[in-house]
């Protein structure tokens, strides 16, 4: 495993360089690594007549469907962690992402989070509206939040326990922060925010959090909770928390990926750009293609297709994942998620609370 460890270490270093990340070279090198060490993926590629020597461009690397993570152990070596997708029904059919190099996942997650959530270098108290890794060791989101809290948080508090979202404690923390004028970073699943908004509406509560406060939500509303449009979510962030829309960042991630995309607003505002169009941006080691479902060729610009992520932080499993999500390219650098394929089962972080029976 010496060379795999070395590859991972080199990749961590390359991720740290960020802007000078050489995507094409890394894509070819990582595909060769995965072809050699990931037997199910090699068989999949060979059925398509694809080998490292036939891959001329990163776009030639065959994508595995996200469903493959439900059916096969797609790892290039012994996993340091196993993350499981969330879902409402058949536990056996949940996807499993075996991650042999947590250091790469950590470097990727922190690199993107810092860039898109903390462009101003703010050092904030972090309130996490997700279960802690102790409560959900198989949740990639919980793991990511733990790393974020360790790396960037002034203080860290987990507001979801075995009994669900601790609404009273959360309300008390918000009231404290308002009184002291503290800025907070609230990060969690969208459904937990919806629960908070509903409680505040019922009790006629509203807070004005300190300047620089921000919200990161992920997962959308897929569970049994009330559905809330994006506009409604942003409105509630302002009326309930006093956090302006340009400080509310939606995160798009998948258990099967070690990299995430983030709403562009906070970064655009920090860089002095206009806030429109809102789009999901990723780090340089994550590229996304929008593919025609019939041909798996790229659709025309602006057309809707299946999202196919090429995430080089997935070095230890499979880098190219064809999702069940539909979306389109927005501006030269971003994407928008528009929906799911017909009949695709609800899954993802939005169900974390529902699984705990908490929302």
């Amino acid at each position, binding site marked *: 495993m010496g060379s795999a460890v070395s590859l991972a270490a080199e990749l961590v270093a390359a991720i740290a360089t960020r802007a000078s990340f050489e995507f094409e070279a890394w894509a070819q090198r990582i595909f060769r690594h995965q072809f050699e060490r990931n037997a*199910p993926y090699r068989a*999949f590629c060979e059925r398509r007549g694809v080998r490292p020597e036939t891959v001329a461009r990163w776009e030639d690397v065959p994508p*595995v*469907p996200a*469903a*493959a993570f*439900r*059916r*096969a152990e797609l790892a290039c070596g012994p996993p340091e962690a196993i993350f499981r997708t969330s879902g409402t029904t058949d536990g056996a059919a949940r996807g499993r992402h075996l991650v042999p190099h947590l250091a790469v996942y950590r470097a990727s997650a922190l690199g993107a989070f810092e860039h898109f959530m903390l462009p101003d270098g703010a050092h904030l108290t972090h309130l996490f509206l997700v279960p802690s890794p102790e409560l959900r060791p198989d949740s990639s989101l919980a793991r990511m939040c733990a790393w974020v809290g360790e790396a960037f948080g002034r203080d860290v508090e987990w507001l979801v326990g075995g009994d669900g979202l601790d609404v009273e404690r959360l309300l008390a923390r918000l009231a404290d922060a308002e009184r002291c004028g503290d800025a907070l970073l609230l990060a969690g699943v969208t459904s937990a925010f919806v629960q908070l908004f509903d409680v505040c509406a019922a009790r006629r509560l509203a807070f004005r959090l300190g300047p620089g406060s921000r919200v990161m939500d992920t997962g959308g509303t897929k569970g049994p909770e009330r559905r809330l449009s994006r506009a409604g979510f942003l409105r509630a962030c302002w009326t309930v928390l006093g956090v302006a829309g340009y400080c509310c960042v939606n995160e798009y991630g998948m258990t099967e990926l070690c990299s995430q995309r983030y709403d562009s607003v906070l970064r655009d505002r920090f860089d002095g750009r206009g806030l429109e169009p809102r789009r999901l941006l990723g780090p340089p080691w994550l590229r996304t293609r929008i593919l*025609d*479902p*019939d041909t*798996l060729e790229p659709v025309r610009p602006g057309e*809707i*297709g*299946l999202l196919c992520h090429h995430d080089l932080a997935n070095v230890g499993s499979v880098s190219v994942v*064809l999702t*069940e999500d*539909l979306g389109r390219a927005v501006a030269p650098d971003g994407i928008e998620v528009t*929906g*799911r*394929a*017909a*009949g*695709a089962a609800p899954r993802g972080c939005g169900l974390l609370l529902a699984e705990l029976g908490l929302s």
Partner: protein
Amino acid sequence: MSGWCETPAELAELVGGAVRARDRLGARTLGDAAEALGAAAVRWGTDAQLLADLPAVARLSPPLVAAAVRIAAAAIDTRAMRALVEHEFGAGAAGRPAPRGPSLIGHVLAGNVPALGVPAIALGCLVGAAVVVKSGHDDPLSAPAFHRALEAVDPLLAATVVTAYWPGGERSWEEAAFARADLVVASGTDETVAALAGRLGARLLAHGDRVSVAAVSREGLGRDEPLLERLALDIALHDQRGCLSPRAVYVEADGSPSPQAFAERLAAALDAVARELPPGPAGVEERAALRLLADEAEWEPGSRVLNGAGGLVVYDPRPAFRPTTGRRTIRVHAVNNLAALPLILAPGRVECVGLAASGPEVAALVPALRALGVARVCPIGRMQQPALAWPRGQRLPLGSLLGRPGPDVLEVEG
């Protein structure tokens, strides 16, 4: 009472007029109604405007629409309707007026299959009720076209019918249409009918999500008939959107051909059918679903994916029923014995079983299928051609409209 209205108030007025027209029909016999409905169906089945306009709104190819209209028209057959009323209401019923029953029946039609309004109108007329039909999103044309055909042959009977369309869930229109209805029959997704149940309560007769399957015994495999072509036709009609569309076929394992070879031949048969009855256009969500189903099957141990121009066949050695995405997608499962079928299928979810099996094999399966909630057993090749007598959801087609609690009915078609 032609059905285009600008406002809910206009719709309510039309509905009131239909109820008054129904009262004026007085002592007309059901046989007369059957005659008029049969004549209207013949006229409707050749409505050139309908055949020209429906493919675009229904998102089906013109040959598929033509086939659907042909089948729907054939089901509204005068002799069959007379037989149905005599079967349900007793000998001589066709010579009498309808039994005492509801004055107004509402129908909320599903959008998945075209021409559902035609049997809805016919059944309502055959229990002597005025009928208000809300068409589904993908076919707002068939019911008004049938209404026009009925007006041409029997204006008095046509005056008891209102057809309309409004986007689902619009309360003011719903209230205008159904406030006076004694009964509302609704077809659609579980979500749709559950929403209606909340508003209509006990007045609702709901037909939620159901699927159908086919099954082939060793003996059925060996029969000298174009079994695969018939099955492919059952799959292809309505682009597999209907509750009578087979979503899986269970094949006994030790016959000839083997289930895997059967799957290969079925894929070829689907390709052949598609040349005559090409699929309609598909949205990106549907095409994505198809891609994902095929991709996932590739990773399932023992499965085989046969993706052709005519549809997607997945050979799946595991017997468990799993939903498919439509668009002519079917799983072929191997089973040791068809007797296991009732244990494999979920209770209350299967509407029709198409069988290629011997008479004794069919007879042996029927009690267990009835207990499972299956409403219809028929030969493969006839799954998409139900008679008006089809006891949908195991309910008598006329008796259920009169609120008569009948036995759980399973129709076995020879």
